[in-house]
């Protein structure tokens, strides 16, 4: 196939592009998407290694951790803080929103690139700088920031309290830059989807994952402003010496909590929505079924986005807010279970009457539903204000949000990578290795966090580096659970080696595939694999919705969006 003449108005021409212009300073949305994804993968490995170190400390207190050494209290705090920050801001966000959004949106809506390609490149560059700053902050004098990823002042505001004069401001600067990067990316996604769709791609024919990424971007952009404002104030407190959060000087520490959680809770749905979108795409293809109730799913995701603005104070039930406010936020928090439950029901209903093939992407997508349901139902215990008094900041919370974030950031990402890998690299992943990796990861994941539900329910708090000074909370039985979780984590990390080997081997040596290896309908499968710069030879025209599988009276059980009737 000859390259289409779809030169960008920016950047170099297709010919004679050097390595740098092709892979580093490219404005091509696919390259940028993969850059985000690879950066996210590297950060995930770093975050995973951190988890290994502090889990080892929890299981075998005050012993030398292989590959690391002794873990001091200061290092432990820095490790848990940065593990959380990295996994949310430098793994979930870049991989799910920026990576997938960049790679998929133009391909799925039938467009040659994002509408602001240079803004897109700038977004990645800022993101990259933010990642570098974060990693540098770990090596700064005094060590990395250790005030938890929520960074509550006054602890985070003053080196007098947190003892990390460099770590804290650098950490905050990295987070702020990262927000700027996603702000630029989010604008790009939204405008591209609104404005650059192929002819015939009406609103109700847009694949659900694209909708979800756009809704997530909008929620992100509407919620991030107050946090950036709070972060600027915190940075000034740290660096200039203002006292915005110092109660002794008339400041208010709770102010930060409000600004932080006003963003922090919508953020959960910002990463959740793209992940559920990925699952929707995959289960339809591998069940050969039309997505059950497209409009309802769309409605539920909009409802989720809206309600997510009204739930944030459930993180502050025991923070000293007005106890009457807690009732309101209990109600809204439990209300948000309704659209999400409905979305999961629609996914389950999609399986009914299907012809399910348990290929690796489908396994991951189904695992997402099964595991996320656990995360969802355990959230009820925390959303109900009275039980949250007990569970707040225990390992129960840790286990709960890992049952939501792990499906989101890891399971859905593996689903997406295994599903779109042929499109990204024109080759297939090894299926046997994929299945091994899947089962190893899922089993060990559950073996990590089910014990943590129990230790949390038994009263163990998170972020405490050694339980030796708590006789009641460190019974032999609880210690054994901690060891079990740690061993399971090591197993989980070892299984990722299989994935990495499979990924890089298949990238070069995998079985080559054509444009549409899964017989899927959406537009990205009408482009060559991998799609060239500019994506499509001719602009596709869209004739129908994205989920027409198993249409009666047709020979093929799929009906691509761009094929005329």
């Amino acid at each position: 196939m000859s390259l289409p003449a779809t030169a960008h108005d920016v950047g170099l021409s297709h010919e004679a592009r050097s390595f740098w212009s092709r892979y580093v300073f490219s404005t091509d949305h696919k390259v940028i998407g993969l850059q985000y994804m690879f950066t996210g993968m590297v950060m995930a490995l770093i975050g995973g290694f951190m988890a290994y170190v502090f889990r080892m400390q929890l299981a075998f207190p005050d012993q030398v951790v292989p590959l690391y050494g002794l873990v001091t209290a200061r290092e432990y705090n820095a490790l848990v803080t940065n593990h959380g920050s990295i996994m949310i801001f430098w793994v979930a966000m870049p991989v799910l929103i920026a990576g997938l959004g960049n790679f998929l949106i133009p391909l799925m809506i039938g467009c040659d690139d994002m509408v602001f390609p240079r803004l897109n490149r700038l977004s990645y560059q800022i993101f990259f700088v933010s990642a570098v700053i974060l990693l540098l902050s770990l090596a700064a004098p005094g060590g990395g920031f250790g005030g938890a990823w929520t960074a509550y002042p006054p602890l985070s505001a003053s080196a007098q309290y947190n003892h990390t004069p460099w770590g804290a401001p650098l950490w905050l600067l990295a987070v702020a830059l990262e927000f700027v990067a996603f702000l630029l990316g989010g604008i790009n996604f939204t405008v591209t989807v609104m404005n650059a769709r192929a002819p015939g791609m009406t609103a109700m024919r847009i694949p659900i994952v694209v909708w979800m990424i756009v809704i997530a971007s909008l929620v992100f952009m509407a919620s991030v402003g107050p946090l950036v404002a709070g972060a600027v104030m915190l940075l000034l407190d740290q660096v200039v010496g203002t006292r915005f959060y110092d109660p002794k000087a008339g400041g208010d520490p709770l102010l930060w909590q409000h600004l932080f959680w006003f963003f922090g809770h919508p953020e959960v749905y910002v990463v959740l929505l793209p992940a559920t979108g990925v699952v929707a795409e995959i289960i339809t293809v591998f069940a050969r079924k039309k997505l059950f109730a497209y409009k309802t799913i769309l409605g539920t995701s909009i409802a989720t986005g809206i309600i997510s603005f009204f739930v944030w104070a459930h993180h502050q039930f025991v923070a000293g807010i007005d106890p009457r406010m807690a009732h309101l936020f209990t109600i809204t928090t439990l209300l948000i279970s309704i659209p999400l439950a409905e979305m999961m029901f629609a996914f389950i209903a999609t399986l009914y009457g299907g012809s399910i093939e348990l290929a690796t992407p489908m396994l991951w997508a189904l695992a997402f539903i099964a595991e996320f349901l656990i995360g969802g139902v355990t959230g009820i215990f925390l959303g109900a204000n009275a039980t949250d008094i007990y569970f707040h900041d225990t390992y129960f919370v840790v286990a709960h949000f890992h049952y939501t974030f792990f499906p989101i950031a890891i399971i859905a990402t593996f689903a997406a990578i295994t599903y779109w890998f042929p499109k990204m690299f024109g080759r297939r992943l090894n299926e046997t290795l994929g299945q091994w990796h899947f089962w190893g990861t899922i089993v060990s994941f559950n073996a990590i966090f089910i014990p943590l539900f129990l230790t949390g329910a038994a009263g163990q708090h998170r972020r405490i580096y050694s339980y030796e000074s708590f006789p009641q909370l460190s019974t032999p039985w609880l210690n054994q659970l901690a060891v079990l979780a740690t061993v399971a984590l090591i197993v989980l990390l070892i299984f990722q080696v299989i994935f990495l080997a499979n990924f890089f081997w298949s990238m070069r040596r995998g079985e080559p595939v054509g444009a549409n290896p899964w017989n899927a309908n959406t537009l990205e499968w009408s482009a060559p694999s991998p799609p060239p710069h500019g994506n499509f030879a001719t602009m596709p025209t869209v004739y129908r919705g994205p989920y027409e599988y198993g249409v009666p009276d047709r020979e093929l059980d799929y009906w691509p969006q761009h094929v005329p009737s």
Partner: protein
Amino acid sequence: MLEWLIPAASTSAEEIDWLFTLIFYTVGFWFLVAQGIFFGFILKFRRRPGVRSQYIAGESTDEKRWISWPHYVVIACDVVLIAGAIAVWRDVKQIIPTPDETIRVVAQQWAWTFVHPGPDHRLDTPDDVVTVNELHVRNDATYVFELSSRDVVHSFSVPVFRLKQDAVPGRVITGWFRPTRTGTFDIACAEMCGIGHALMPAVLHVESAEAHAAWLGDRTTVAAASSESRS
């Protein structure tokens, strides 16, 4: 159910455990049903040669009731759980009963200071007993505590009481508890407060009235003696 894992030693603990059990069974039942249907579908509709998938759009009201009915069930359960949560929260956090004793809890990096009112049951009198990392309370007495922090945000957490309350610098936050069983338990800080966050354990002694009075007597004589020697 929680008392299988950790004893319940206050009136609030019993209520919170009741709510936990309510949520556990309500949510657990529907969780199992949902997972059962989910795995049932996966098994039943596995790919078989020659069998095509059905074409169901899920757009007609007829089909949609398969998700709208469960969704009404979710709403109904939510209402029950919200009602339960609000009822328990009111008792635990919102309504503060008349105390038998008032104590003061002060958090700082990295220790707890407890001010017991002493035999006269009043704070800020010379017979106050001040302890560090050690709280003595009387069984079956209603306590109100005034919680404050000297530096950063801490959180006063007593797992056996199911009690947790952040201590915010610049504010005095009030709460209450009423112990129901004697014993020695752990108190922890539940909010990241710096390098020594793990080193803020305190010991809670719930004592019978007699034992408590004896302890107070000991401490008061010591305090009186030391104040006398100082003057």
